[in-house]
């Protein structure tokens, strides 16, 4: 694991056990979770539903206490009010005060975050603009869609100009355009020197914007590191697209690859290694056909994630 200098979040052997259900059975939500998040990073916290993501986040924002271990934010206990003043938080599927308008809610959030009175109006307006909610600023939030609530949610998280932003499933309920805008906002926060810690079960979001990723499964951090470290550069397979094949050669090629997909005139053949590519090229030359593309397929985060989840789930 890479050593993080100047950590913003630092946990040591963090465990959380709670009682649940009939008979108050003990459930371990977190087991010996140790990791650091450095200043200015976008840290993606990845795990399937029920893996312990929200339990960890609740400890990091001081809503819950760890059963064992320690969680430090800016070098102090997470429950410390001085720490909270430097942290912005967006809960999962946020539900806000539906009787308030978006503007009233952001003003309330600014008041609680300790924003000076003279700066509140300007801050609220610029945030409404950032999340594209100016048009609904004066509307009570009871009529808001999930995506609109999510937008107001990120605005309230940023209202105190926090150094660390913790987002629990921030992309939930957003359409593709909204997700793109959210990714831009998150990258923009890093560009301002802020640290972003966000949980998700959507791999594409993590792959696109995170500097480092932690994978949590059944309460244990099973992998943590830069995306490059987690996803080795080893090529898993090659995808060769061939056009201009006649019937006979097409059948031969289909047998050479691990799999073959026809699409109009083109045939996409997947072969496991260089030797496979050579065999395909030889047949193409013989057939007088043409190679349109050779794409090496690397291990994706999804492959990696599935390998872990497949192995650990229900274990």
């Amino acid at each position, binding site marked *: 694991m890479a050593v993080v200098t100047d950590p913003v979040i630092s946990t040591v052997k963090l465990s959380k056990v709670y009682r649940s259900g009939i008979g108050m059975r003990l459930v371990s939500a977190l087991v010996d979770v140790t990791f650091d998040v450095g200043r200015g990073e976008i840290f993606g916290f990845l795990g399937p539903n029920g893996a312990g993501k929200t339990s960890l986040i609740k400890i990091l924002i001081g*809503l*819950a206490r760890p059963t064992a271990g320690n969680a430090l934010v800016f070098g102090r206990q997470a429950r410390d009010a001085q720490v909270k003043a430097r942290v912005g*938080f967006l809960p999962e599927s946020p*539900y*806000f005060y539906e*009787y*308030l308008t978006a503007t009233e809610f952001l003003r309330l*959030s600014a008041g609680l975050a*300790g924003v000076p009175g003279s700066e509140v109006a300007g801050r609220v307006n610029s945030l409404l603009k950032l999340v594209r909610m100016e048009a609904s600023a004066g509307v009570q939030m009871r009529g808001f869609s999930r995506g609109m609530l999510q937008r107001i949610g990120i605005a309230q998280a940023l209202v105190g100009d926090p150094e660390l932003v913790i987002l629990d499933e921030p992309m939930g309920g957003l359409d593709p355009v909204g997700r793109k805008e959210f990714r831009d906002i998150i990258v923009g926060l890093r560009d301002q020197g802020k640290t972003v810690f966000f949980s998700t079960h959507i791999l594409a979001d993590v792959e696109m914007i995170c500097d480092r990723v932690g994978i949590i499964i059944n309460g244990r951090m099973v992998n943590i590191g830069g995306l490059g470290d987690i996803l080795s550069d080893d090529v898993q397979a090659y995808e060769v697209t061939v056009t201009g094949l006649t019937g006979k050669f097409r059948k031969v090629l289909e047998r050479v690859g691990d799999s073959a997909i026809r699409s109009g005139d083109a045939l996409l053949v997947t072969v496991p290694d260089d030797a496979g590519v050579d065999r395909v090229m030889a047949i193409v030359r013989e057939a007088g056909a043409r190679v349109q593309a050779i794409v090496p397929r690397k291990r994706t985060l999804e492959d990696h994630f599935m390998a872990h989840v497949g192995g650990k789930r229900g274990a």
Partner: protein
Amino acid sequence: MTGRVASIALNTFREAIRDKVFLTLLVFAILVMGSARVIQPLALGEESKVIQDLGLSAITLFCVLIAVLIGGRLVYKEVEKRTIYIMLARPVRRWEFILGKYAGLMAVLAASLVVMTVGFYLVMFITGTPASAYLLWSLLMTFFELAILTATAILFSTFVTPIASSVFTFAVYFVGHLTRDLRLLAAMSPSPVVKVVSQVLYYVLPNLSNFNIRGEVVHDVVLNPEALALAIGYALLYTATLLLISTLIFSRKDF
């Protein structure tokens, strides 16, 4: 600190005044006071006393309903709807949250008292009832009674559901008006169990009959300023204790 308590109080105030329960109660209270006009002919020669007593009782009853029904779900609702997450993720201390919620509901009750009192004096004016300012003493004492009741509702709201909280608070309200009888029961009962239980209840539950001076003001009886001051001091101390216990319970909670 004061900024955060004020922000939470303002939010609580907005929540209550935009709540259908609150508006319904307010409208109902004014209707009841207006009904004085209907019963006026029935009160042989005692019209003014009946109208005054009815008005003061209606104001007290509806304010008690607001305190109990809205107060009973004040904290629980934030936990249930998970709005508590964004509150407590802020640099808000747990006691500031409790105090803010309490102050917000007390502001709602103060506003309700003012609105209902204006309605009450209007009814007296229309019915030609002598509207003495002396009656306001009774409403002042009602306000301090509400201070205790709201703190009771908040205390219950930190650990039981809104319905249970409202039921318990109502129970405290009713028994609180009978504490003198509890003491009598303790003295008279032959059973040692009944003696102990009624003694304990007598000392633990608030003595709310101290705050009922409706009879005195309606019948122009001279009030005892010392007794009133003592009752107000008692209300402040009792309320502070309840809020302290609420904070202790609330501080131990994980969300």
